[in-house]
């Protein structure tokens, strides 16, 4: 898994690519914590190049979303497709996040 962060005016874009599993989901938690501690309100996770995510990854997404919500912010998802999309749909998590097709759309909506 690789996480690439880009800072925009209203949000931090985290491009998560590769495979997110039990062994490395913690890296996503850390990236979120880092940006939240620096005052970020909205994080956008771009999952267009995420090939694989297991339930440990889902925990990380959910935890970050709940944390940001309590700070009146949000975790926004975009680029959800393939197996990750199916995993979000099977667990009905797709109804709990603001989702956009592309990072551009997500940024434009803020």
């Amino acid at each position, binding site marked *: 898994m690789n996480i690439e962060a880009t800072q925009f005016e209203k949000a931090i874009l985290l491009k998560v690519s590769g495979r997110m*599993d039990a062994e490395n989901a913690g890296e996503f938690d850390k990236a979120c914590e880092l940006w939240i501690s620096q005052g970020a309100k909205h994080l956008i996770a771009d999952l267009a190049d995420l090939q*694989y995510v*297991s*339930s440990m990854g889902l*925990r990380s997404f959910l935890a970050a979303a709940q944390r940001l919500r309590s700070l009146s912010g949000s975790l926004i998802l975009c680029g959800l497709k393939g197996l990750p999309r199916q995993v979000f749909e099977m667990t009905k998590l797709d109804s*709990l996040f603001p989702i956009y097709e592309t990072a551009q759309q997500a940024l434009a909506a803020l």
Partner: protein
Amino acid sequence: MGSPFERLTLPARVESVRAFHRFVRSGAEAVGLDLADMDKLDLVLEEILINIARYAYEDGAGDVQVAYSTEAGSLLVEVTDQGRSFNPLDAAPPDLALGLADRPIGGLGVLLVRQIVGLLSYRRQGNQNILSFRFPGPGPITP
């Protein structure tokens, strides 16, 4: 009859999951699973193995064995541990209707396994939990 089982036993720990993924990959290739199905197989295995690592052993240490056999177009996978008796088919499904604030962080692993694998078989044999499933994508008929 089916080909004999290939077996790998490792400590039931998060750090063993990727080694098991590599291990079953040869079987998955032998039966011609496509990449999308391989990822699904990895996911099912990861969920089962993580749960064994987290919950199966009282003192937190024990082994887990993954065995597979390639039969005509189909991969049979069997996961065996010696931990407490746990039948995932009896596990209460999580409440998927809860909103973001109320949704517990977790409780989705068994659900994913059951959704992807469709039917799963479980048996308790002596002090062992044995979970097994067959993993073909829809495949060719075999004469």
